[in-house]
């Protein structure tokens, strides 16, 4: 009974701590200066079409917090339809929320200006491969990957069979 209770409480703890999708990092280069930005895409770098995605540009410009920049963020889909997305500018960077309408390739353009002067310009292509399916195919599987996978499985199976047949010799030889 006690064991069951312990198991139940451990499972409850684990379930209550279930992960929330978080963002990883993609380095985007600036087209104006030699600055860079780390782009965080939430959830899990892999947004779902039809669901809200959070995009955050952590810009490597230490002087940016002292300025009063204006950010223009546009997203262009593979049909060349462009949408201007509202942004939040804070000390650590620029963030935006957007619902990608369907799967496909999108071009993200972020332009930061101050008093009409362009400070930074970032461009990044983001593929959306989850959620609502678009009219276009989202890419094909390369042949080398299929061949490599098959090769790894076959060679692994051969090595496992050889190791199993020689297990007594291995046991004798491979010990201190």
């Amino acid at each position, binding site marked *: 009974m006690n064991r069951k209770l312990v198991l139940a409480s451990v499972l409850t703890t684990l379930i209550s701590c279930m992960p929330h999708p*978080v963002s990883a990092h993609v380095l985007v280069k600036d087209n104006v200066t030699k600055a860079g930005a780390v782009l965080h895409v939430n*959830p899990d770098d892999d947004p779902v079409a039809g669901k809200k995605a959070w995009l955050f540009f*952590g810009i*490597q410009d230490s002087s940016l917090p002292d300025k009063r920049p204006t950010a223009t963020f546009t997203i262009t889909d593979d049909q060349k339809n462009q949408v201007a997305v509202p942004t939040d500018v804070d000390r650590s960077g620029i963030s935006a929320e957007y619902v990608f309408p369907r799967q496909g390739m999108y071009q993200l353009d972020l332009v930061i200006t101050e008093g009409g002067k362009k400070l930074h310009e970032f461009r990044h292509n983001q593929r959306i491969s989850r959620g609502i399916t678009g009219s276009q195919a989202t890419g094909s599987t390369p042949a*080398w990957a299929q061949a490599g996978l098959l090769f790894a499985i076959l060679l692994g199976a051969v090595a496992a069979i050889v190791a199993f047949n020689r297990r007594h010799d291995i046991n004798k030889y491979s010990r*201190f």
Partner: protein
Amino acid sequence: MLSQETIKNLPNNSRFYILVFSVLLSMFTACLLRMQVGSEQLFYIRTEQIFGFIAIGYVYLALAISPVQKIVGKPGWMKCVLFARRAIGVSAAYFAFLHAAVAFWGQIGGFDGLGLLPRTFMWSLGFGAIALLVLFLMAATSFDKVIAFMTFRHWKWLHRFIYGAGILIILHVWMVGTHVVYNSVQIICATALGLLFGLQSWRIVSDFAKRFPVFSSRDYLITIFICLWLVWTLVLLSMPNYIQSYHGQHHNATQREGGHQHE
């Protein structure tokens, strides 16, 4: 590097199978991800993450073997595990290299991108690079001929650097690791590291008792063991207070902004 006898006995050598397994595992992982992940960017991210995770698994295993051997002694299976440990270390170096290569050339874009990274990233990559160098040195000196050339004493001294590399790996992962912001991952990692610290503390205490027999009484040993374990575990648990996690900052920011990452 390899003697005639070693080459002749390759099919009987467990290290050979571990190394073959590691190479095939890396191939399998890369090919499977390439087939499943459409986006080039995401492919690099996932590959880098999985290779890093496997490298950490191997390092953990290699570090746990010695203290476990102190506890269980040297039964037949432990002699086999001790023999295989060198291949486990080489596999750790191999996966760490793959992890670094994918991150460096795939994600960052080589030396050009290095200068564009935030300071936290630079520190973290520096720690990771030093740890990789240590793993490389250890892999390069894992041949019998090299050990004979270096003498066992010096070789053993060099291989003690793995403990420093282990600390650097913890810092590297904590500072830029994506998934360490998950509560469940933090609990699992803290438990696994707590267990490893416990095992290592026991190993240190055992060696201490051998060197200074005057302290070999059970009470002394248990007190030193508990103190060591507690200190290491407390240092680990207090790490978030003095070292910033890059993703943790942004993860907390998104939660403050309304928790829209909850699907």
